[in-house]
């Protein structure tokens, strides 16, 4: 089947084919409601600050399937321009005080990308990992994680990243899974957790 044929076949099952146009007054109301919101973002509330502090940005070299999924304070990220690199905005989970003990079954069920990597370079907020093993997900040679302040409290045993230090990191839907499911490779029980899960 040609590309065009394939495209037409998928188009034939378009679920929105029967969707009527939005009435003009509804569209106008929607626009008015939108524009009545201040253009500048409101400052984050207390609970949002916690999430923002835990924010990570992960860029997977050669892996485009992890897409920017900013879940910071409910404000979606915007797509990056081509050439800016496949950057994925992530959150690192909730504060460790609220985490339950990690379980391999939970990790296996929730992670769609997991890898072992060694810190290759630290540049400002960017930490670049050389991937030594992909436990789950598409092959990647490098993964770049941008940390808000050069570290993340949600990663196990995570002090400031140093070149040569090994990490095990899992992610779901573009979000690094914290709460004991990602961190320094020699953190107690983490490697066993990965081996059991994957």
């Amino acid at each position, binding site marked *: 089947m040609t*590309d065009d044929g394939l495209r037409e076949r*998928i188009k*034939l099952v*378009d679920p929105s084919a029967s969707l009527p146009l939005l009435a003009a007054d509804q569209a106008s109301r929607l626009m008015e409601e939108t524009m009545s919101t201040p*253009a500048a973002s409101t400052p984050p509330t207390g609970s949002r600050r916690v999430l923002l502090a835990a924010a990570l940005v992960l860029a997977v070299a050669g892996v485009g399937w992890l897409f920017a999924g900013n879940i910071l304070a409910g404000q979606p*990220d*915007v797509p990056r321009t081509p050439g800016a690199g*496949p950057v994925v905005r992530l959150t690192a989970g909730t504060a460790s005080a609220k985490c339950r003990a990690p379980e391999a079954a939970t990790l296996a069920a929730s992670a769609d990308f997991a890898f072992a990597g060694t810190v290759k370079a630290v540049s400002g907020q960017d930490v670049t990992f050389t991937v030594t093993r992909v436990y789950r997900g598409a092959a990647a040679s490098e993964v770049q994680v941008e940390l808000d302040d050069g570290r993340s409290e949600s990663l196990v045993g995570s002090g400031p990243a140093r070149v040569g230090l090994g990490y095990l990191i899992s992610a779901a839907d573009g979000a690094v899974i914290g709460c004991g499911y990602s961190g320094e490779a020699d953190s107690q029980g983490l490697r066993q957790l990965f081996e059991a899960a994957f």
Partner: protein
Amino acid sequence: METDERRERFEAIAPAVIEGVRRYLARRTDPATAEDALAETLLVCWRRLDDLPDEPLPWAYGVARNCLANARRGDRRRARLAARVAVIDPPRPVSLPEGPDPDLAEAMARLRVQDADLLRLWAWEDLGPAELALVLGVSVNAASIRLHRARNRLREALRKLDVHAGHEQSTEGSRW
């Protein structure tokens, strides 16, 4: 002054964005989630008006895509809770109605989520590699390669379904 200019620009681009994003969402989620995600997407467009490219729709698809991802994360949290309830009171399985092209639906379901997502953007939203790259946040080259591979995987999945169906038929035909 500035506000008037902003309003004018937004009013110029919003109708096309609303219609496009509305369809994008209707193809992928339930009406209530779609309504929320559309409002959220418009808000991002309004707040990031200065960042919008000349052709804002692929950009807006990318925003809507993230809104849906956020909603699904919330759904999964609720699903985990529901799963605990389901152990006590298991729901009966519901058979889904067959669509107009069950083979295609089955083949798409067998693809990786990322491939199926890409193919839907390509076919339903009519996006080419450059626009796909903008939605997915990858280079045009990467989008082009991924699209090529996804199409081949879909063809392969369809072919396997054909072979399987043909095999079953011939087996049935040879029975006594």
